[in-house]
């Protein structure tokens, strides 16, 4: 998909004026949609082994404290 970042250029003078205005206005904006869904990494480091180790504990924790879970 063609983004708005490409501009058709007229004369050199016109192109310079357009480019300056664009830079003053904050540059180009890419309006095409990303290819892949955005995945926000939870920023937690955890191995599968730790998940297995903690899972039964987590289940018991929820059972024993129903008021807060």
């Amino acid at each position: 998909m063609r983004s708005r970042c490409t501009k058709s250029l007229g004369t050199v003078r016109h192109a310079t004026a357009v480019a300056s205005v664009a830079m003053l206005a904050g540059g180009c904006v890419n309006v095409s949609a990303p290819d892949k869904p955005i995945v926000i990494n939870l920023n937690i480091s955890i191995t599968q082994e730790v998940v297995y180790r903690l899972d039964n504990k987590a289940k018991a924790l929820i059972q024993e404290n129903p008021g807060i879970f």
Partner: protein
Amino acid sequence: MRHMLFTAAAISIALAAGPAFAQRDPAYQSARAQGLVGEQPDGYLGIVGTPTAELRALINNINIQRKKQYTDQAAAGSTVQQMAFVTGCNLIQRTAPGEKYQAPDGRWLTRGSEPPVRDPRCL
């Protein structure tokens, strides 16, 4: 007399063996059912729409208690954050249809009858 005893026994058994929401604070249960608060993948409650002072107080109160439990339960070899994460996996799995939960990409979703969208590391 026997009828009263039977009824009392039945009620006490129902309360003891009842589903978890029977022991939740009514304000918390109501906020959950209305989709005002929801489960986050990090193991804590979040506010779904516009925060209010009451909702903030509600989730802060519960989240502090959760954090204490996670801290107590995180054994040697794992962190509080990891314990919270694994509990969050389970909590999202246990959301009732109609309740809100947060997907790994940050979107708030409404739980339906199909399995929830969870971090791939969840069991």
